């Protein structure tokens, strides 16, 4: 996983709430067995509409998505995170994220930044008025800066450390293998087994 410390980039304003993962990456894309190449499918249904913000060349190359509340609802597909990353996003800002999406994003080093609705709106307005405006997402300081505002965000110390180090969970967990083995000896015998 790519480490995340601080990132500065331009932002795409997506003024929609309840952006579900079926919209982020439609199901026809889920048949792929690779982890890469999903950027082409990002919001593919909405991109068919010329007026969709992603079709505005002024936002080409932007790396921060500023979306409405309840971003990433619905299906657990991690492909949604892969698509956003493959398209070039490093962070998504929203007033609220769906739980599974948030977990998937954190697992891949795509930073989900939760900010109050007014702050998100202010960022969207700024990016609409001037698509060249740059925003900095500073994980070390847990702060978003830019467009004339400074907004702190919350993220627990452990997750922040893991992201800044770019550590993957499997490696971290396997450090505690003896605890897992110990736990397994305490499991009741009536628990079902597939075998």
């Amino acid at each position, binding site marked *: 996983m790519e480490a995340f410390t601080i990132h500065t980039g331009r932002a795409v304003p997506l*003024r*929609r*709430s*309840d952006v*579900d993962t*079926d*919209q982020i990456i*439609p*199901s*026809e894309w*889920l*048949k*792929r*067995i*690779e*982890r890469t190449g999903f950027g082409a499918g990002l919001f593919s*249904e909405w991109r068919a509409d010329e007026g969709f913000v992603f079709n505005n060349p002024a936002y080409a190359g932007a790396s921060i998505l500023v979306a*409405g*509340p*309840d971003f990433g*609802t*619905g*299906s*657990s*597909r*991690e*492909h949604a*995170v892969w698509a956003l990353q493959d398209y070039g996003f490093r962070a998504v800002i929203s007033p*609220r994220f*769906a*739980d*599974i999406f948030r*977990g*998937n994003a954190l*697992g*891949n080093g795509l930073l989900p930044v939760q900010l109050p609705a007014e702050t998100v709106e202010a960022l969207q307005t700024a990016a609409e008025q001037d698509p060249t405006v740059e925003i900095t997402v500073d994980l070390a300081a847990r702060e978003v800066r830019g467009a004339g505002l400074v907004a702190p965000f919350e993220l*627990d*110390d*452990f997750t922040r450390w893991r992201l800044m180090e770019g550590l*993957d*969970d*499997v490696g*971290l*967990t*396997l450090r*505690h*293998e003896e*605890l*897992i083995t110990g*736990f*397994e000896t305490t*499991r*009741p*015998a*009536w*628990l*079902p*087994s*597939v*075998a």
Partner: protein
Amino acid sequence: MGRTLAEKVWDAHVVRRVDGEPDLLYIDLHLVHEVTSPQAFEALRLAGRPVRRPDLTLATEDHNVPTTNTLAPIADPISAAQVETLRKNCAEFGVRLYPMNDPGQGIVHVVGPQLGLSQPGMTIVCGDSHTSTHGAFGALAFGIGTSQVEHVLATQTLPQRRPKTMAVTVEGDLPAGVTAKDLILAIIARIGTGGGAGHIIEYRGAAVRGLSMEGRMTVCNMSIEAGARAGMIAPDDTTFEYLAGRAHAATGPAWDEAVAYWRTLASDDDAVFDREVVIDAASLTPYVTWGTNPGQAAPLGSRIPAPADYADPAARASVERALAYMGLTAGVPLSEVAVDTVFIGSCTNGRISDLRAAADVLRGRRVADGVRALVVPGSMQVKAEAEAEGLDEVFRAAGAQWRSAGCSMCLGMNPDTLRPGERSASTSNRNFEGRQGPGGRTHLVSPAVAAATAVTGRLTAPAQL
């Protein structure tokens, strides 16, 4: 202080707890399907790691599988490759798989319960958000992403922060003609698609206790549509009766020991929930969705809402957008909305009692001209049961198509899709834009309403026939 059901199950699975870090939870059952697993197996292969507990891991083919001509090779080469990849991965890593045409095959959330693998007090995960279904047994069951699938395959554990708890208490009894599906649609309409975010919901109250296991699964299944991490119902005699004698349930003294433990799982009287919502069952009627998220639902007897009814500008914009996408006009009675497709199936409503409810309505009636009605059992076992009862004949005689088991039109990864502009009454769980096919329009309904709608060609409750 007392603990909730969710807290009890959680605490019993903590492998490692350190201040400031997520708890490391042991996973009792890991269900796997073809769509969200290939990249996870690939990562194991690259790291040279085995599957830690193949005996606690079960795979099935469901999302991509065709529901007609199942003996022929899968026509779509990309779907075929994905299914083939699962077969290879399961063979290589020693994971038990129920492939297409196997009598054990079916939708992952139908297979676990029917085998008796989903039991009270367990932790169950799957790379699929509707894993919340298994919470109906009093298990802590939740959907995970592919990186987490890899994590569970490699370690049989998952680092997780404990969500908050929320009680949804449904007081009184459901009126006749009101089903578990209507109940959960009404709950989501009330609390919203983000209403359960960060929470595990426990459904309680007389109306919930009165539900069958299959009804409870329908309710817990859609917890994710309210944004909840999981949904749970405390196990009781209904649960134990359902489990007794199933293939993977314990027997003899081990069964007694299990039941004794399961009886301790109910939330303590003095347990405190972070949030509580009370719903009056007696006030409920059949519910349908009119919009493009599952929270945009209303009683079938009501009218399509107008954007102006909503004070919040964001909600107003979302309603406006939804009505435009759905091609609906505010103020029109929902019962006048005409559909061209009816889909009965999915992990929400593809179980035997769902098919019985639909067959009861269709028996002796005909699907309206111009309406395509698909009945897709949730598993091969459900299919066999339905056929043994003659339900397939009822559906065929009514003019509906009787299919083989799979996810089918719930998400349209197989050939069963809506064409642009087509409108369905569907017993599945998501009415997102394009969910059942690009440009398709979905109304979520119960199996009984789906069947009645097939008969009239308009959204209809059986009582109106």
